[in-house]
């Protein structure tokens, strides 16, 4: 009986929260908010906030053409694998005190899992056989390369800071990182973590492939690059993956740097005088709400504003930018963390 309940619990995790359904709703909502914000910044009315949902369902209803030159299985399977990987990453990222699967993966695993969605784009593009996809996937790969170095540095800096404070030497567990912040306040309040947070903010648009770092999927020059031959439902899945990746990156940022906010929420509920099971539920709901608000703010900061004010970078400029400016920021943070500031 308990076994069935356990299995049911995990199924709920995977399918509803923080798994598939949550990702689907929040991701597309974030995407819609982003589009609306960009439109408002350009003095446009902009699409309705639910526009990404319409796009997704429309694509589901369209015909899926498989080009004769494509390898069918890879072409159809690649988007699904990418989406599944993103959902799985979301399962590993704790929502303040709540984490669905805390003892399965650490941040190095997440670092590698983040490669899989990008790889699914690359593999799908390669399988389509289009030369536009060839150009696009090579740019996608360079984008991955660019983001990887600063991302590694940021994660190592966080691991060092938390590990030192906990007396472990180093700490790769995301759950522990969040717990530490619950206890001692958010990492963003530390001097040494400020450059790391800034670097991570700059990584978010690169990882999600949004403006100005979208050289890989430049629709005006290489026909959306790797997605050039995709149509119908698989294309919809890619669009969905892109939306979920925004959620993943922003909520990873919250978990890494704003974990301490959960403590404040708990205190708030305590002050209201609620106790028992009700308090737990209230805290949980509040946490989800706060997480969502954080995600919206971060999306606004890193994706919408940047989109509205910049033009697309060429791929070698992108690489240079990440390996100099962003890496420099992350490196400063790592060195500061190393000497315990």
């Amino acid at each position, binding site marked *: 009986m308990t076994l069935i309940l356990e299995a049911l619990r995990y199924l709920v995790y995977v399918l509803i929260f923080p798994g598939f359904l949550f990702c689907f709703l929040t991701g597309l909502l974030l995407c819609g908010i982003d*589009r609306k914000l960009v*439109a408002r910044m*350009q*003095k*446009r*009315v*902009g*699409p*309705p906030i639910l*526009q990404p*949902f*319409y*796009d*997704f*369902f*429309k694509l*589901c*209803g*369209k*015909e*899926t*053409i498989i080009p004769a030159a494509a390898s069918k299985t890879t072409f159809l399977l690649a988007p699904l694998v990418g989406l599944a990987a993103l959902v799985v990453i979301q399962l590993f990222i704790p929502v303040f005190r709540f984490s669905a699967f805390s003892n399965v993966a650490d941040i190095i695993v997440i670092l590698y899992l983040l490669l899989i969605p990008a790889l699914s784009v690359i593999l799908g593009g390669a399988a389509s056989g289009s030369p*536009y996809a060839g150009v696009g996937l090579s740019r996608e790969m360079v984008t991955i390369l660019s983001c990887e170095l600063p991302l590694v540095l940021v994660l190592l800096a966080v691991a060092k800071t938390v590990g030192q404070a906990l007396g472990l030497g180093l700490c790769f567990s995301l759950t522990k990182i969040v717990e530490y912040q619950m206890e001692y306040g958010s990492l963003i309040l530390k001097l040494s973590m400020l450059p790391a947070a800034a670097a991570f903010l700059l990584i978010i648009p690169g990882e999600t492939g949004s403006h100005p770092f979208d050289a890989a999927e*430049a*629709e*005006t020059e*290489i*026909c*959306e690059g790797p*997605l*050039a*031959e*995709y*149509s*119908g439902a698989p*294309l919809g899945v890619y669009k969905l993956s892109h939306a979920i990746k925004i959620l993943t990156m922003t909520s990873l940022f919250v978990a890494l740097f704003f974990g301490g906010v959960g403590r404040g929420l708990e205190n708030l509920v305590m002050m209201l005088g609620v106790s028992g099971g009700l308090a737990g539920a209230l805290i949980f709901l509040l946490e989800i709400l706060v997480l969502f608000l954080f995600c919206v703010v971060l999306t606004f900061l890193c994706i919408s504003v940047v989109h509205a004010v910049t033009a697309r970078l060429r791929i070698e400029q992108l690489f240079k930018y990440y390996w100099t400016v962003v890496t420099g920021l992350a490196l400063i943070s790592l060195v500061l963390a190393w000497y315990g500031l």
Partner: protein
Amino acid sequence: MFKKLIKESTGKSPWLFHINAGSCNGCDIELVSVLTPRYDAERLGFQLTGSPRHADIVVVTGPVTAQSLDRVLRTISQVPEPRCIVTMGSCPQSGNVFRGSYAIAGPLSKYVHVDVDVAGCTPKPEAVIDGLVLATKILEEKRGQMK
């Protein structure tokens, strides 16, 4: 339920693919101006895409020159169902001032079924938006007929 959702969504999210079949660029510029802040077709869900595989509505401008005919037809055939074809400006409908030239293969309707014609040289952005909205309705209908 899903079917209804999809049908409604199809009407709310039409993506455009623009083919220049020998146009003088007047219509092309007007099509872009449809997406600018003043007219903002994006509020209706319109979006320009880079690949015909992503498109719902194909907008053809220009008198369909003999050189471009083959390419136009191939590109149109590559758009997945349901799709709508909109001609923009007088050129693809009648040949306009180029009518009778040896280099012209148009009008487009000789080769494919055209759903909406937006006439004018060039049509005003309001007219273009009107035509596109009409195409959207047709698109929704076509989606409804699909199983």
